[in-house]
């Protein structure tokens, strides 16, 4: 009997949304498997999340320890290795925490590892079939994992349909005593909050968002002129911030700001899931990209295959003439 454990991270007593998505992922791995949520932390927040999880999962394991008060991946990993039975499948979200904990966990469990899975196609014997993407989402791949000795799998948040939850009536088991030695050669110090920039892109109804297609720092002016004509604000994808062409506070994405505009003009943005993870509220997305195969065209409402450096000035002029 396959046992699947879903590690549910939470912030301020609130489980991450992926908690509702793990059950669908687990069902696609093996509908007959037992699914158990694991929550680790300390104090009232942990108890409240464990309670919430018992409405979604049939079994919940909680591990309460002062050393787990902040989810230091190295410490959580030690606890999981001691608590999860050999040969199990462990699901972790593919987030900055998941990327921190999961590869090492697979080594310590001597289990297979699969990262950023967007779909499962069931198991044949001990071979689990999965789908993931490579090259920034440009191509998809079928992958298999030998799960005879278990597996650690990070699943992409948002890739699996959320369950309703609410009535599982699950049991909560306190395994705090089984966590073992939680000493670590890595100590958490503090979280430094993101700097607030000159403009708040989260407040704008219309964003002119630029990516690699802008090619050069000097060309940002072209986007600013379009934004002015549209009474919009310029935002951007990660490479623009990495190049130090715009402030971090203008970056849209999971590692930047989450925005909910009415209209999102994706200019020369390929559309990685990390970027799209920051675009919420179902805006009207206009994508302009000279690569007709850019993944952004799969999520945009309107697509235009053009070079933004030629297209944006013409659009600006046309709007100014209205």
């Amino acid at each position, binding site marked *: 009997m396959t046992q699947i454990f879903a590690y549910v991270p939470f912030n301020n007593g609130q489980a991450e949304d992926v908690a509702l998505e793990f059950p669908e992922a687990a069902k696609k791995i093996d509908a007959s498997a037992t699914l158990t949520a694991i929550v680790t932390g300390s104090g009232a927040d942990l108890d409240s999340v464990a309670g919430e999880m018992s409405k979604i999962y049939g079994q919940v394991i909680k591990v309460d320890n002062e050393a787990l008060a902040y989810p230091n*991946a*190295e410490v959580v990993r030690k606890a999981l290795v001691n608590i999860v039975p050999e040969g199990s499948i462990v699901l972790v979200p593919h987030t*900055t925490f998941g*990327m*921190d904990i999961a*590869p*090492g966990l697979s*080594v*310590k469990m001597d289990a297979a*590892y*699969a*990262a*950023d899975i967007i779909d499962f196609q069931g198991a044949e014997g001990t071979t689990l079939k999965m789908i993931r993407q*490579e*090259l*920034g989402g440009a*191509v*998809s*791949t*079928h*992958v*298999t*994992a030998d799960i005879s*000795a278990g597996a650690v799998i990070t699943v992409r948040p948002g890739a699996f349909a959320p369950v309703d939850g609410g009535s599982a009536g699950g049991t909560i088991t306190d395994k705090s005593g089984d966590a073992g030695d939680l000493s*670590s*050669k*890595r100590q*958490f*110090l*503090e*979280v*430094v*909050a*993101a*700097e607030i920039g000159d403009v708040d892109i989260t407040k704008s109804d*219309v964003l002119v968002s630029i990516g*690699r297609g802008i090619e050069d720092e000097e060309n940002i002016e072209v986007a600013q002129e379009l934004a002015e004509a*549209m009474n919009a604000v310029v935002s951007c994808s990660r*490479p623009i911030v990495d*190049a130090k062409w715009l402030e*971090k*506070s203008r970056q849209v994405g999971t*590692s930047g*700001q989450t925005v909910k505009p009415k*209209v999102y003009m994706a200019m020369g943005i390929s559309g990685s899931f990390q970027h799209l993870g920051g675009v919420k509220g179902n805006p*009207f997305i206009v994508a302009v990209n000279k690569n007709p*195969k850019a993944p952004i*065209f*799969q999520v*945009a409402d*309107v*697509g*235009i*295959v*053009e070079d933004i450096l030629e*297209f944006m000035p*013409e*659009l600006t002029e046309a*709007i100014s003439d*209205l």
Partner: protein
Amino acid sequence: MEILVCVKRVPDTAENEFELNGAGNDLDRDDLVYSVNEWDNYAVEEAIQMVDNVGGSVTVVTVGDDESEEVLRREMAMGANNGVLLSDDAFEGSDGNGIASILKAEIEKGNYDLILTGAQADEGAGQVGGMVAAMLDYPYASLVNKIDIIDDKKINVGREIEGGNQEMNELQLPCVLSIQTGINEPRYVGIRGIRKVAKVDIPVKGSADLGLDADSVGAAGAKTRRVDYFVPDMGEGAEMLEGSTDEIIGKLIEKLKAKGGL
């Protein structure tokens, strides 16, 4: 500080439009442009800057075939002192765990204080650094966007976490870090820089040199395998606007008016 940076030769996502081959199961690799994984340049730059500040040396290592030597030379042109190529037919088909096992064997032959990798590469798994650390029982931090050397026993590192926030941690050395883009501005490498290191000897090591059991790496040791590449059916996708630029702009303006964009 003795620093090892693990790098990889990958298809360049900025330079290629990816297409499947005739059989429809792999990328059409005939005309692919390869380069060093973007994240690795940031890792090498960070290593060079640390050594500039506190002394020591930077070694770059990769697991790959003969063609991977060019990425080692590129990173040496940036300023890395040494390069090592880990290459063996037995390494082919390795999964992340296999690559980590090969790197671990090389790391154990040296005396490194710090091991750096890019936060992720072409496959987007971001797995090798964390696996190497666990195999060596070194502490690990991923997605690092800041490093402060405290003394020869410990460093403080910032991790990029959700929402643009930064998680600060203190790690004991030796440790493994995966480096996120944006931590620095990698220096430009010109033709002259490449020429300077064109003749530097880069040792090549195989499984026997590393004392590896050939069955533990390569396809034989892989628990995770890529079966094929495919292009998913994404449904309708965007409504593509076509015609002359003027016509496209006309249609777009109408839509933007309707959706509150103008």
